[in-house]
């Protein structure tokens, strides 16, 4: 399909650029790690409480790190007016949306792959066996974040105080994802399985699907220049 082919083209271009510059990936990674240290210093955590607070703290770290990524999402396009070049081309706007959302998703996943085990180490958690489930839930939550975040990133592209405006409009809308992910993570860390939290998982998946579709449909208007 044309949409997927174009998505792949733009995504591949962005990944190559990321590999060469590594600016987004590295800053996100270091920022996430820094946050973990700050959390540990701020919340004097006893071992029993850590499990309770882990979902919230993890998600806070991802939220802020992800926002950093979102702010830089169209960075390559800003120099040399390359965004104009893309808009001038026959590129489907939905493909641009998918490519950018995928880019942020991949970057965040890479960061999470490191941050989650790091969290377990720094906070002395023993439940290493739960990591696969934790990753899966984080993945679903990250997907929703990237999808909605890409729309917001494009919406605020030409606003003043962009770095502040982006979280301002994004975070309230992210609340279902935040709650759902934390509830699921909490259930998993408490009891080793989702159990009661299954409806939350459904909400999470539902959110992802709804806003993925919405994003593809709406991006045409979102990215209109000037």
């Amino acid at each position, binding site marked *: 399909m044309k949409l997927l082919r174009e998505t792949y083209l733009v995504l591949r271009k962005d990944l190559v650029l990321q590999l060469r510059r590594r600016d987004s990936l590295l800053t996100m990674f270091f920022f996430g790690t820094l946050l973990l240290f700050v959390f540990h210093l701020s919340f004097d955590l006893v071992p029993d409480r850590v499990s309770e607070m882990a979902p919230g703290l993890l998600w806070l770290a991802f939220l802020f790190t992800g926002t950093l990524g979102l702010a830089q999402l169209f960075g390559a396009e800003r120099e040399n007016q390359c965004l104009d070049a893309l808009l001038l081309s026959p590129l489907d706007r939905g493909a641009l949306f998918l490519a950018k959302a995928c880019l942020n998703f991949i970057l965040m996943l890479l960061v999470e792959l490191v941050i989650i085990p790091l969290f377990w180490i720094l906070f002395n958690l023993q439940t290493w066996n739960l990591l696969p489930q934790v990753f899966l839930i984080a993945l679903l939550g990250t997907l929703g974040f990237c999808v909605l975040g890409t729309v917001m990133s494009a919406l605020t592209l*030409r*606003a003043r105080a962009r770095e502040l*405006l982006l979280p301002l409009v994004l975070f309230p*809308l992210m609340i*279902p994802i935040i709650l759902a992910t934390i509830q699921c993570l909490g259930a998993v860390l408490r009891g080793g399985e989702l159990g009661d939290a299954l409806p939350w998982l459904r909400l999470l998946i539902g959110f992802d699907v709804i806003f993925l579709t919405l994003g593809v449909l709406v991006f045409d208007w979102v990215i209109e220049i*000037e």
Partner: protein
Amino acid sequence: MKKGQPQKSRARFLGALALITIAFGLYWALVQAPRDALQGDVQRIMYLHLPSILTAYLSFFLVFIGSCLYLWKREKRDDNLAHSAAELGVLFTALTIIEGSIWGKPTWGVWWTWDARLTLTAILLLIYSGYLMLRSLIDDEDRAALSAAILGIVGFLDIPLIHMSVYWWRTLHQPPSILRPDKLPWENVHPAMLTALAINFVGFLLLYFYLLSLRLHLGEVRSEIKTRRLNQGAF
């Protein structure tokens, strides 16, 4: 502008009607309706609180409608509707929270609590404040209108999801059933109370539409000024 005259008198009539209805409603709320058995007189603020939040919801629905229409037709007046409704929505939501807080202190002993309704109302306030901020921070007007329209639609579509998640969050160990707000803290509803509520609700609606018409007119005048300045600037 001659054509403004019938509009102005219509608006004034609406405003007067709103004033009378609210006065009537207040009388009913403060005098005619019986004192609440459990909560005492403090409960009377519900006669303002409920209409406030319902009006706010109506306002946000209008933001959604205005945004959809603007995306479809790109007419300034639809954007004006969305913008005006957002401003009024933020106003009424803030009012709701303040009224809720005033009720909360004597009832629960605290100014704020994270129960489902209050949290949800606060989130609504945040979303639409964000909407207004987005508009004011984008310099190009058409771009601002377009971005705001999309935010208005995305935000509105997100509200059911937010509603669901916040209510589930607050009723953690119960199976999440239908999305009903926790029941109003009344045992039996006295008919006089219902009357007071109804009158106030109508009064608030009238007040809302009066304010909306004022704000819409303001938006139109601003638009007109901009168009005239633009046309005058044509060399």
